[in-house]
């Protein structure tokens, strides 16, 4: 399934800011839905069927495999030859004007919420620490995982990272 960005999902939202769901605005409601904190049924428009849940991404999709063209390199880690570093690039012509990740949005939604995830909008970097290898992502869609134990683990970490920031994809 194609990842839908926050903005794509917002286009399929009421955008009335009516407040019936208990949130101050529709964008706040959407963000909380992204985080899994609220069901869509809280919104009177979705409850009445005026808007369809099927028009939204119901959550971060599972990425099955990574196209070979996106892989920049796979090589031994400079400081630990038993481990590897993998770099990929997800930037497509559609994203190229604005970059791949919107780190400002990413920080608003995910910072302090996803364990081990640190986001710097000013630098355009997000970094996620994990035992399988630390992942860094840049707003232009370049991502790399350092000190991964194997290729399989490296790509799982990259996939997990992309899913963590799914709502911040431009």
């Amino acid at each position: 399934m194609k990842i839908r960005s926050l903005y794509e999902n917002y286009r399929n939202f009421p955008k009335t800011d009516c407040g019936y769901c208990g949130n101050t605005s529709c964008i706040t409601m959407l963000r909380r839905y992204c985080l899994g904190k609220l069901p869509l049924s809280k919104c009177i428009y979705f409850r009445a069927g005026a808007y369809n849940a099927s028009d939204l991404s119901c959550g971060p999709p599972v990425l099955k495999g990574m196209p070979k063209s996106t892989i920049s390199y796979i090589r031994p880690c400079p400081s630990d030859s038993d481990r590897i570093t993998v770099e990929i690039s997800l930037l497509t012509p559609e994203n190229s004007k604005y970059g791949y990740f919107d780190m400002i949005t990413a920080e608003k939604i995910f910072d302090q919420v996803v364990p081990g995830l640190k986001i710097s909008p000013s630098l355009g970097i997000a970094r996620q620490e994990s035992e399988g290898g630390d992942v860094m992502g840049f707003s232009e869609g370049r991502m790399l995982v350092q000190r991964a134990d194997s290729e399989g683990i490296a790509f799982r970490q990259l996939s997990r990272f992309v899913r963590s920031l799914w709502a911040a994809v431009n």
Partner: protein
Amino acid sequence: MLDTEAIRRDFPFLREGRIYLDSTATSLTPEPVLNKMLEYYRDYRANVERGVYKASQIATDALEKARGEIARLINAKPEEIILVRNTTEGINLVASGLGLKKGDRIVTTILEHHSNFIVWLRARDRVKAEVEIIMSNDEGFLELSDFNRAINGRTRIVAVTQTSNVLGVRPPVKEIIKIAHDKGALVLLDGAQSVPHMKVDVKALGCDFLAFSGHKMCGPTGAGALYMREDLQERIEPLCIGGGTIEDVGIDYYRLRSGPTGFEAGTPAIAEVIGMGAAASYLMGIGMPNIASHEARLTKTMLNGLAEVPKLTLYGPKDPRDRAGIFSFNLGKLHPHDLAIALDATAGVMVRSGHHCALPLHKYILKAENGTVRASVSLYNTEQDVEVFLSTLSEISKTML
């Protein structure tokens, strides 16, 4: 005062606004040096010291002129300069040529680059020589009393760096040389990080050997020099022998040449040596004291700025008078490789990360298991380079830790 803008125009690599702070690993190469190398390939491409035709004579003269310039850089005689590939080869030449035997003693320090460390451990393993390693304190300072205690009548050689490639600290080499000579030991100095950045005078220092690399002094990779006192050359066995090193060869004998060419087997890296000579001229044209004072100013700015970055641990001396423009540090628990990548990706700042070929120093003194990030300044860096580096570092510290 250095005209940094004019100097920067000589370096094509810097034309795209890059911020290069990794001169400790390798320096950038200016156009005059590149032109000199290409001139060889274009105008007088011939082997040296072999042909009698004009182009070969020109090539030979150019190589010997380069040797002369390299000698002039450190106040040596051309006959005392042996052309090698790099500092590492120069040190290996001495280590293997000394004729070390069981019971001989070698003194070195924990600050050393692997090239001036493992060669001596290998000598210990091969011939059962003794190796004593002088430890430093946390900031990298060495005590002369430790040298006094460690060097004795059996000490053949004391091998020490003139500037640490990790901490920028400068051991008191003149005093160390005196102690060593008083007890009959030779002294080898690793000049890889000192010769490109300050006036080094081998006669004033009194060292017996000094090794340094062309690529760290604005020259090309593949050329280096070993200063060896003239009267020692008969006592040191060459590392390689073959064509170019002989006086005479018979069916069952050979006689090696005296002088530096006796150590230079095979065709040298001619263009590279010419480039190294041109680099020596380039640096002397600017003036080594001018380069040193420019880097001292940048060092002060850097140290003041690094002290303001939250959660940064700086290794080595904190006083700018006690160090060269080399700064190794860590930022919180951020892995050094991740920090180096972030600096490059966000601000085009190029720094080194890892153990900098100095694992013992990182393991036993710095206690930095993952290594450190190292930034270094040179004649083509500016205050603006330092400011961008510091501000990006601060931003990373505030938002990524």
